[in-house]
């Protein structure tokens, strides 16, 4: 019998290790031959730990399973049981998705290259190995893939710039510094299907003529880092990485580097400085990292999801991928639904889903059962959306038009107990803590921002225009998104939830 229990951090955080121990103990007690596969997560975090069993009808799901349920599941022969959910693939959350980047996540053993290949892995790379570098770059351009880290820059154009640069060495840098609250897609793919990231990086190397890759991950992700380190070791042993890619291509190898708790290192130029062993201070652009990146050499810096999506583009073809989505937002996006929600997790779908559908239908409203007040989209630098903007379709331009951004597609839901003035204050406080210090509007402005919000909280309405003015200065006078986008959560809170800023003024006056 094969039993699947995820090794994903979220599953572990909810007791997966204890469930595995209980399964093994119970199997031993009953003298049953049981193989426990530690898969990635299917993304239904409210059902974690989600236990699956192979059956004639496919994988059967049970969840959320606690160690106390295990004996009963064995008694029931993994059939009728209070925690039985039916075939995993038939669950509404699974059926409604278009899983391209996450097709294998939760399905395979993340550290089995055999499983990986049995589910389409390396097909894209084998195709790319038969293509010219120009054709590889053109394929990515044609797919319409844009940077999934948040900036949304066309991946193919970035690759083309690096491919066209002349240098003795070029680099592929994977930005795995997923610091935005509400986002965990990078973590999930690194834990659940790390070879797809490695394959994507190898294809990028072939396309631009780079032989060295770095994955810059986070110290906050100990489990993901352990899986990645194992995956890199296995990829070397297999010949996917090393002196000649699969024995057919040029050399390519990957080194895993771990950051040290600085949010700003998720910004590509700060990341490059950090990778070079320096303070994670933002660099001015130009020069573009594509021309003068790591160690001053041409460097592709792509987000985990961008790179992890490359294999499926080569496996299924650029036009297959491009046919999903809306406007200039092509393909699929892994939505990460988090915060105060009944059903939280990862849901991969074509661009275009309205925010209201995500929050009300997918997430099922709040965990507390109270009305939804605000939804922050795109991490700590993303805007707070009120219900009035729930018709906004999920796309880069559509969110920009509404004074927001999709960022890394993290969606954090707050119920009506949220105090938006407090959230605005936190945005400024966070910016003050995490500012690299290079730009004055960010370094000093964020500190003044906290003080200004405190003045408003004390009932000083004259401080409101001051806050708006400060936000303008930060927006225009900061080199990177930390100082430049902190105004999004602040101003959206002020614009869409003015009562939270004025009520406190009234209360203070009373």
């Amino acid at each position: 019998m094969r039993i699947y229990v995820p090794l994903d951090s979220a599953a572990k955080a909810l007791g997966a290790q204890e469930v595995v121990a209980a399964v093994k103990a119970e199997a031993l007690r009953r003298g049953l031959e049981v193989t426990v596969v530690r898969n990635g997560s299917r993304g239904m975090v409210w059902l974690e730990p989600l236990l699956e069993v192979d059956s004639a009808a496919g994988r059967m799901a049970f969840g959320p399973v606690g160690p106390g349920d295990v004996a009963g599941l064995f008694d029931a022969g993994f059939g009728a049981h209070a925690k039985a959910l039916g075939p995993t693939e038939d669950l509404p959350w699974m059926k409604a998705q278009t899983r391209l980047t996450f097709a294998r996540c939760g399905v395979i053993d993340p550290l089995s290259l055999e499983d990986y290949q049995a589910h389409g892995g390396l097909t894209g790379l084998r195709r790319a190995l038969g293509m010219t570098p120009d054709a590889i770059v053109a394929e990515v351009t044609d797919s319409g893939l844009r940077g999934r880290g948040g900036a949304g820059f066309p991946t193919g154009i970035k690759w083309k710039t690096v491919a066209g640069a002349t240098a003795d060495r070029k680099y592929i840098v994977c930005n795995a510094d997923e610091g935005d609250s509400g986002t965990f897609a990078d973590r999930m793919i690194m834990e659940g299907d790390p070879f797809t990231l490695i394959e994507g990086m190898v294809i990028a190397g072939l396309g631009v003529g780079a032989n060295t890759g770095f994955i810059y991950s986070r110290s906050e992700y100990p489990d993901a880092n352990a899986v990645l380190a194992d995956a890199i070791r296995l990829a070397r042993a297999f010949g996917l990485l090393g002196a000649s890619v699969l024995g057919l291509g040029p050399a390519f190898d990957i080194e895993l580097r771990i950051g040290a708790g600085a949010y700003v290192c998720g910004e590509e130029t700060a990341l490059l400085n950090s990778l070079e062993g320096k303070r994670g201070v933002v660099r001015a652009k130009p020069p573009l990292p594509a021309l003068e990146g790591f160690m001053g050499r041409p460097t592709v810096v792509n987000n985990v999801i961008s790179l992890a999506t490359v294999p499926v583009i080569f496996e299924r073809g650029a036009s297959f991928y491009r046919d999903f989505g809306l406007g200039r937002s092509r393909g699929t996006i892994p939505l990460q639904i988090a915060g105060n929600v009944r059903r939280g997790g990862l849901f991969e779908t074509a661009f275009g889903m309205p925010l209201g559908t995500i929050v009300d239908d997918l997430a099922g409203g709040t965990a507390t059962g109270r009305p939804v007040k605000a939804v922050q989209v795109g991490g700590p630098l993303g805007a707070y959306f009120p219900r009035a903007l729930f018709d906004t379709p999920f796309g880069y331009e559509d969110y920009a038009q509404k004074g927001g951004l999709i960022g890394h597609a993290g969606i954090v839901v707050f119920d009506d107990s949220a105090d938006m003035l407090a959230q605005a204050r936190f945005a400024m406080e966070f910016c003050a803590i995490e500012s690299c210090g290079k730009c004055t509007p960010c370094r000093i402005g964020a500190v003044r921002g906290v003080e200004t919000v405190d003045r408003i909280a004390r009932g000083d309405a004259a401080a409101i225009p001051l806050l708006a003015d400060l936000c303008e200065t930060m927006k225009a006078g900061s080199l990177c998104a930390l100082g430049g986008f902190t105004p999004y959560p602040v101003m959206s809170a002020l614009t869409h939830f003015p009562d939270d800023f004025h009520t406190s003024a009234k209360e203070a006056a009373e």
Partner: protein
Amino acid sequence: MTPGIADSAEQIGDILRAHDGLEGPLLPVLHAVQAAFGYIPGDALPVIAQHLNISRAEVHGVIGFYHDFREEPAGRHVLKLCRAEACQAMGADRVAAHARDALGIGWHQTTPDGAVTLEPVFCLGLCACAPAALVDGRVVGRVDEARVDALIAEVRL
């Protein structure tokens, strides 16, 4: 027993040599030193600086920039509580206040018995099972007041 200065210099030398050949090796070196000693001893700075041919000020500046690097040893256990938005939406502020009261310390402080250091963290990627915590590298989800009490009791054993 604390290792003597000569011992630690030798150990740091080993760490440095193990990282020879890396491009931009300072962060991996600092992580390794901290993993070995629990913090980055002041004695390590000149050794690292000389080996990497950079100034002590540069090493110091890098240590100071990143939240992870410590210049003092932490408690025997480190409890990190997420303070970011998804966790806030599920009551992280309330839970953190409870943890500070229960431990009798503030952020970045260690209990007088040296048992627990309390640190804020901004996002553990456990945003769909918030609030989240990291206890000596082990992830914990849906942390409420009772869970905090249980975690504190567990690490104090």
